[in-house]
Each structure stands twice: as structure tokens, then as C-alpha cells.
């Protein structure tokens, strides 16, 4: 199926990616080609087939809830672009 510029703008917003007009056109073209290929899945009848989200048959992996060592505040903040008073600092949220 073909993706319009509007589709690409919508998906770019959901993905939090700022795109230029040129990129929007390029990605609309490329994504349309890729989705046209994956549309081949429509020809398969999967009625009654269970989905496989994970290769191993495992669920509910439990462990004891014990306190272990964790990283220091300093180590956690070392890679942040901005920090203040032991916290990550970001621009205005609300």
C-alpha cells in the first residue's frame, strides 16, 4: 500500500522524529515500496493460527524481591546532557 505525505507526518509525530519536507517525500516513497512488499502476507490464510510473540515457551519468570547494589547517582547522571540537584534536567513539559 502507498503512504501519503500525511501518513508519514503522522507516523513521524508518533515516532518523535522531526523530518524536513525532502525527507517526508523520500520516506513516503521508500515506505510505500516496503509496505507494498509486505502486503504479500495478505495472501496467507492464518485463520485459527495463534500468534508467536516470543520464541521460547516461557511465562511469569519470578525471583525473590531482594535489594541489590545499584549505580550511584553520580554514575547515573554522568551521561546526561544537563542535570541539576541530582536530577536529569529537561525543557518545560507542561
Amino acid at each position, binding site marked *: 500500500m502507498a*503512504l501519503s505525505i500525511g*501518513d*508519514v507526518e*503522522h*507516523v*513521524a509525530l*508518533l*515516532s*518523535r*522524529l*522531526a*523530518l524536513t519536507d525532502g*525527507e517526508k517525500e523520500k*520516506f513516503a516513497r*521508500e*515506505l510505500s*515500496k*516496503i*509496505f507494498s*512488499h*509486505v502486503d*504479500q*502476507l*495478505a495472501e*496467507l490464510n*492464518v485463520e485459527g*493460527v*495463534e*500468534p*508467536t*510473540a*516470543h*520464541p*521460547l515457551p*516461557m511465562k511469569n*519468570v519470578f*525471583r525473590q524481591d531482594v535489594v541489590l547494589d545499584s*549505580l550511584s547517582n553520580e*554514575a*547515573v547522571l*554522568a*551521561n*546526561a*546532557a*544537563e542535570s541539576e540537584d541530582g536530577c*536529569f534536567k*529537561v*525543557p*518545560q*513539559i507542561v
Partner: protein
Amino acid sequence: MSLPCAHELARQLADGTVTSAALTERYLKAIERTEPALHSFVTVTGQRAMEAARASDARRAAGSLLSPLDGVPIAVKDNMITEGVATTCSSKILGNFVPPYNGTVIQKLQDAGLVILGKTNLDEFAMGSSSENSAFGVTRNPWDTNRVPGGSSAGSASCVAAGQAPWSLGSDTGGSIRQPASFCGIVGLKPTYGRVSRYGLVAFASSLDQIGPMTLDVRDAALLLETISGHDPKDSTSAKLPVPRYSEELEKGSLRGKKVARPREFFEIDGIEPGVKAVLDNTIEKLASLGAEIVDVSMPHTKYSISCYYLVATAEASSNLARYDGAQYGHRTPGTKNIVEMYSKSRAEGFGDEVKRRIMIGTYALSAGYYDAYYLKALKVRTLIKRDYDEALAKADLIVAPTSPFVAFPFGSRSADPLSMYLCDIFTLSLNLAGYCGLSMPAGFGEHGLPVGIQLLAGAFQETKLLQGAWELEQTLGVTGTRTAPAAAV
């Protein structure tokens, strides 16, 4: 002169004919000499490596070795978290990221006394088949520097083929260990999902990713696999199963009387190069000459594996890569006015085109109105692909298949068309969807005299059988160690 395998180096260290410091220095010099032509590494950790090597030599003198591999050098793909050493995933968004902890596999290497030489180049976030998606420049194939080394574990393959490291670790989400191993003429093994901890492997697609060995021969693959395998409380998807001493099991198996499946669909794909086909035919003859019974099987959903994979893997990637938001680590665009602008601009500047493409494919496939038609449908097709494997492996012990339809291709020949790049992976993707184990091993030389690998595949946690078959085949094929890449440091 052929390149020395890691097990040979371990023996030389044990015999006292070489020290770890001398060995490490030799590899660092080889890197220095050949790196301008190849660019296998993002970061070479020369000083740390020499310190680790000298510490290993001191342990040897004191009789307190950590393992039989103590002092052997190794290289690791730059998507594995290393404490105090930049871990970039070959992405601008992590260009200045220095992790405060070790991934489990890195910790296991250090606990065994292995000496890490550096972090190898990859397609950004392991998304690609050629190294052309690295933000820090391409890696060149040591067999022909005008050609790609394969990807995404590009540097991990080229450094081994070029003698810059005796062995390395890669990661395989859809063939990223096996395809570059084939292009560079080495062994690359993707373990069963859950065999090796993913803690500290930067996530691409969490239900598909596995770390595995990239080596000069099958014995080294067995040695390295047993070093990195095992349950990890920090990765709840790692299997609670004992780890066999794979390297001690190699000679105990026999292909005589074993059944090897030849899936019709893997051999009927259009565009297999004649040279690759000839190597495949010869390999099957050799398997038969060893007494294996070749069984023809059908895996009818093979042609859907690319579509299935590129929906499942991108959906998982779109979720995993949401963490790169410029807040806690990684690139942040300065001077943004609000949080959405900070996210959107930091991500736009930090990610390359292929990563953006895959995030958008995955986000679209998961979005309202398309979830059922794309993501859920792909998960159901995944069940059918897994069933194909189960049915084939019910009739046979192993599956034999090509690794790639062609030998290493020239730079630029596929990068303009993302879909044509995706089609490279037709023979490797489905194994990750099924979650089973497989390897690519050198089986001959094809077009332009370039290496051709073939795959052996096996069921869940059947690595012993896989390695036994590969080891026996390796002896009979007589390809391993016969030729060395022209750009190698020897």
C-alpha cells in the same frame, strides 16, 4: 601463512612460548597497520588491553589462571555495554555514551581473563547488511576492500578475517553474525534464543537478538560459546539450562546415519550465484560422503520470512529505540523550547536514515488501524514459519542451507534501495523468527574468488549436535585455513 586460531594461542600461552602481553601487542600492531584500509573498529582500547594482558601474565606466573583462555585477546561488537569504554552502536545518538556498567557477556569475558582489544564497527543499531549504515564510516572486506564485509556485525567479521583479532563477538537479529561471517570467510554462530544473556546488549528486536561467536574455525566457536552461555538473573528470557562443554563434545559425534534436511525453497530462490550454487552442491556431496542421509523437505513459508521479519523486528525496534530521548544519555539538540521539540530534534539529528526508516515502519505497523493487518498478521505468519522448522527438524537432525545468495557485493550496489538490501537476508531471517540455532561456516570460494559460507541449522538448544556436524564437515571440506584474505596482517 594462515592466521592462528584462539585455541592455538591458548596452547602457546600454556606452553610458555608466548606471553599475553606479547600477543596483545602483536594484535594491536596488526590493527594499527591494517586499520586505515579496513576500519573494523570504532574504538581500540590499546592501553586497557595491555594492562589486562600484563595482569593475565601475572596470574599465570602466580598459578592463579581464571580459565584456559586467560590472556587470549578478543574484539567485541560496539553494541555490547562496556564499563568505562564508549559504546556507540555506530550511532551519533550514542556517540559520547560511556556506560557505567558491564553487560553480562562482557563480564563473562573478563571473568575468564580474555583481553578486549576494542569495539567493532556495525550498521547503526545493528540495522543493515553491509556496514554502510554506520554513522562512523564503512568497514571494508579484507578479501576485496572495494566490497562490503556484510553486516551488521561488519567489524567483528573483518577483524577476524584480517588477523586484527583472533576471534570476536557479534550479535544476530536476522543474520547479522552469519552473513558477514560468510562474506569474510569465517565461522559465525547464532545460538538458540535464550542460550546467551542479552543483558547489556543494546536492544534492537528483543525477541530475535542473540550474541554469538565469530571465529576462524569450529573449535573456537565451541570454546567461545561455552564461555558466554548460561542463565542470567538479569535477563529473564535466558534459559535455565546447563551449559555443555561444547569444545569437548566436538569429536564425539558422527554424521554417519544422521539425516540432513535440504529445504527445497532455499534452493529454488531466484538469483543464487552459480559459484554459490556450486559450493552448496559440493557441500551436500561431502555431507553424503560422510554417511549423512540427505532428506528433501519443504518449508513453504520461506518466501514470507522477509515480510514477517521486517514487521516483527521493526515493531520491536520502534519500541526499544523510544528510550533515546536526549534526557538521560546520548545526543540532545541544544536550545529546544519544550519536551516534544527536544525529543523530535534530538532523535532526528541522532539517528541515521535506516534507523528512522525502521522506527517508522514499526510504528506504522503497530499504529491504530494497522495493528491487525500488519503486526498481528506477522506474528501469526511467524507461527507458520516456526512450524516449517519443526516439521523439517522432525524429519532430520540438521538443516543445510545457503547463507547468502551471493558473495560480498561492491559498496553502493544496494544501498540506494532499502528493499533490495532487505532481500539479501532471505536465508538467515527465518531462523531468528523460529528462535533456533545455526551457524555459517566457510565452504569454498565463489565469484571473484571470494569466500562462500553455508549454513547448518538445528533445533532449540541443539548446539552440541550443530557443532559436532560442523566440525566433522570442516575436516572434510578442507577449506578452513587454506587461504588468507589479501588485506590481512600476516
